[in-house]
């Protein structure tokens, strides 16, 4: 299996994502500069955290128009696995690959902490190695992680089981219904504010992010076998 980790001007969690894939899965992974227009050689794409284009105008708004994003849209349509983490999540909502938008945290403060999450849907390609309802500990680090979506879209998302992670008990950013991560209708595109790539070893304070990566590999192998 081969992973691409996109790199925009201002990405800063790209190497963490590369290391997480290498260390957890031992699979091939390459950083891919945002001017690349062909992602056909990759099976999964990680849109990492950071501050693409300095987050000027709005988080993710400018990155959405990077040349690589057309290839990401194509990969999404082909059913490839795509995960946007933090700024990557913001980019995926801005590009329309995921519903909703991320606003300033309601308290206006940046939050950097290990945050408990509930796995709301373990039937996605990203969460099958978690138990349904499992509480996991994954770091957050963001100032604009306050998820918002209109009511009509939210009820459609609920009917389609697209809410993948919720913050457990406390809400670190004011996010609607404590939503921390969502997927698209087809289930192959995931966006989340918490950073699973920063929780792959006890030395980092948690290894609860590992199962996300092993789930992707399992889903890919299942697809190959099918």
């Amino acid at each position, binding site marked *: 299996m081969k992973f691409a980790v996109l790199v925009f001007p201002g990405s800063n969690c790209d190497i963490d994502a590369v290391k997480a894939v290498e260390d957890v899965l031992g699979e091939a992974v390459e950083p891919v500069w945002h001017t690349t227009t062909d992602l056909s050689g990759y099976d999964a794409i990680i849109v990492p955290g950071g501050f693409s284009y300095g987050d000027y105008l709005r988080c993710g*708004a400018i990155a959405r128009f990077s040349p690589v994003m057309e290839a990401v849209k194509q990969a999404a349509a082909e059913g490839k696995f795509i995960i946007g983490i933090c700024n990557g999540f913001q980019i995926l909502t801005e590009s329309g690959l995921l519903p909703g938008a991320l606003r300033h945290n*309601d308290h206006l403060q940046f939050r950097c902490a290990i945050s408990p999450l509930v796995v709301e849907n373990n039937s996605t390609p990203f969460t099958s190695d978690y138990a349904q309802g499992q509480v996991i500990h994954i770091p957050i680090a963001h100032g604009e992680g306050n998820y*918002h*979506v209109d009511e009509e879209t939210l009820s459609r998302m609920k009917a389609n089981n697209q809410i993948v992670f919720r913050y457990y008990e406390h809400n670190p950013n004011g996010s609607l219904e404590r939503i921390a991560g969502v997927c698209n209708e087809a289930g192959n595109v995931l966006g989340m504010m918490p950073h699973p790539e920063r929780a792959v070893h006890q030395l980092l304070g948690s290894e609860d992010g590992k199962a996300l990566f092993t789930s992707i590999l399992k889903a890919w192998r299942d697809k190959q076998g099918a």
Partner: protein
Amino acid sequence: MITARIHVTLKQSVLDPQGTAVTKSLHALGYAEVQDVRIGKFLELKLDTADRAQAEARVTDMCEKLLANTVIEKYEFELVEA
């Protein structure tokens, strides 16, 4: 030459944490009459055209595509002769 003056603000239904913080700060300074503050962005674009109708269509397109996120934001603009 036409100048487009664009205001992008959060939709009324969307909580504006910056506006809320500034409201509280104004109250602390004694400006009790302030009911609500909404904070947005002001963008001024200089357009190399004299065609107002075309400018209006193009600026609308820019707002929809990039300058506003219509999931949470609304925009309005005026065109003035530069």
